[in-house]
């Protein structure tokens, strides 16, 4: 078990969400950065539900020996004052106090334990979906149940996705409703990620004119999916996230391909974002490479107090038992 000593806002349990309910108006939800889940899984094996931390501080006390994985946006992490490498798995003894503080790369950070945190399942998932009133943000004093776990420290090479950049998009049924010149201008526009954004979607900013279709207020509401780039009434694009509404009436100029969606959702406010249309066949043929895991060799430059180190990670601690 872990106890929440203190925490900032909007830290939630997330997994791969609850697919299968779009017909009932319930979005799949789940973790915003699915690549972070793949990386945590590569480190730990099975991950179940983990904590998604949107740039909020978090301090946890472990009551059992636990191997944790830290993935997604890098935070400043320490355990009992000893710095921990991000993008890595660490065995921590019972009694450890783990402190995570916001970093400067990316939006969503993830903490997983082997086998996942336990919580009631709603419609087959433990993911919080706050807009739908499922689950609740973490609060000080909360207890997170999980199984004890041991193992070696290891490191995963994170996929590059934290500084904005190029987003590949495919056409939607509404793409051709935009004038051809606007589609070209859209590809040539240097957008930045606007400060306004959440798990429903992120707003983009640019200096030029907006983008609109003819008769866009009269479109029949139709399905929307995470990754869709939706133009609102004033022609400002939003990239939709895991908790976007299931249907919408505003036209979608394109859909960010699954491989690039983590890059879109992890971009910090002000990060540059551009779009390029790619053929559907090319997008479908893309495979995301499996994350590479290596043993975590302890580089003295990354260590704090050498004497305080748990150099024999994996051995059961005698400090405290459950």
């Amino acid at each position, binding site marked *: 078990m872990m106890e929440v000593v203190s925490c900032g806002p909007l830290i939630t349990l997330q997994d791969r969400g609850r697919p299968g*309910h779009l*017909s009932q108006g319930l979005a799949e939800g789940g973790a915003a950065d699915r690549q972070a889940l793949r990386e945590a899984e590569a480190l730990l094996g099975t991950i179940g539900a983990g904590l998604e931390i949107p740039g909020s501080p978090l301090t946890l006390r472990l009551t059992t020996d636990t191997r944790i994985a830290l993935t997604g946006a890098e935070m400043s992490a320490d355990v009992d004052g000893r710095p921990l490498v991000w993008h890595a798995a660490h065995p921590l003894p019972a009694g450890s106090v783990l402190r995570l503080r916001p970093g400067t790369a990316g939006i969503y950070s993830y903490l997983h334990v082997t086998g996942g945190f336990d919580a009631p399942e709603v419609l087959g998932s433990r993911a919080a979906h706050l807009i739908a009133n499922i689950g609740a943000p973490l609060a000080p004093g909360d207890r997170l149940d999980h199984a004890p776990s041991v193992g070696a420290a290891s490191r995963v090479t994170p996929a590059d996705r934290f500084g904005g950049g190029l987003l590949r998009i495919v056409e939607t049924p509404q793409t051709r409703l935009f004038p051809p010149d606007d589609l070209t201008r859209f590809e040539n526009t240097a957008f930045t990620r606007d400060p306004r954004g959440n798990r429903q979607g992120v707003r983009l900013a640019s200096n030029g004119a907006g983008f609109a279709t003819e008769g866009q207020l009269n479109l*029949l509401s139709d*399905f929307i999916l995470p990754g869709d780039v939706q133009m609102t009434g004033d022609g400002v694009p939003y990239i939709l996230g895991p908790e976007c509404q299931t*249907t919408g009436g505003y036209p979608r100029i394109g859909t960010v391909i699954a491989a690039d969606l983590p890059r879109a959702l992890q971009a910090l406010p002000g990060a540059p974002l551009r779009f390029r249309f790619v053929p559907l066949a090319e997008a479908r043929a893309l495979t995301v490479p499996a994350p590479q895991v290596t043993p975590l060799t302890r580089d003295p430059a990354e260590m704090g107090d050498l004497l305080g180190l748990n150099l024999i990670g994996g051995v059961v601690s005698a400090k405290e038992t459950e």
Partner: protein
Amino acid sequence: MSETFPRIEPLGEAALLVRFAPRLDDAANRACVAFRAGLQAALPEGVTETASSLGSVLVRHDPGAADAVKSALDDLLAARDWSAVDPPERRLWQIPCSYGGDDGPQLAEAAAMAGLSVDAAIAALSSARVRVLALGFAPGMPYLGILPEAWDLPRQTGLTPKVPEGALVVAVRQFVLFGTEAPTGWRQVGRTLFGCFEPSRTRPIALSPGDEVTFPSVSPGELRDRAAEDSDRLGGATWEVLR
């Protein structure tokens, strides 16, 4: 550019959208519900989820299965006239509703726009048997229709800052039964205490596309009494299965 319907188009890399009509149309919506039921009865390999909305059916699939799924959808579409297929098994709901007064502050305005007295409007709305055309906006929140022509009311130009969960609102020949407290441009004519989504229920989302619904008129007191006795948070609603 002329478009023919139904048509199948990709939505992202791992979904196909079967659109039956470009605008709200009762026959097309029936076709959506029937086509999805036909699809669910013999799910093509590689399909991971299907869903129907106002005028389309979404078919999510494994990324590698696009061509096979497209071809299966083509065959199924061609197999019959889906707008003429008998509706699949569904529920007929009776959801008690208190019209007018504090529970329906815009009933008089909506009735006047429809060219009816308040009493005639209540009689019309409470006897209308409508279908769940789609669920969306909030989990389990239904769009219901299609109401008679008189109820083709435009949305308000300004928004009502908030209507409560359970509010029955009307516009563009449809009802919406609010699944959550929210602002809206539709006019509130009544109030139910029906919980569209309740995670603790065995059936958290009560309604399905294709279900049929009436909103019989009850007094404010009866609405609350019946809701208080309803441990499932269905606001005193009852249902039966239609085959």
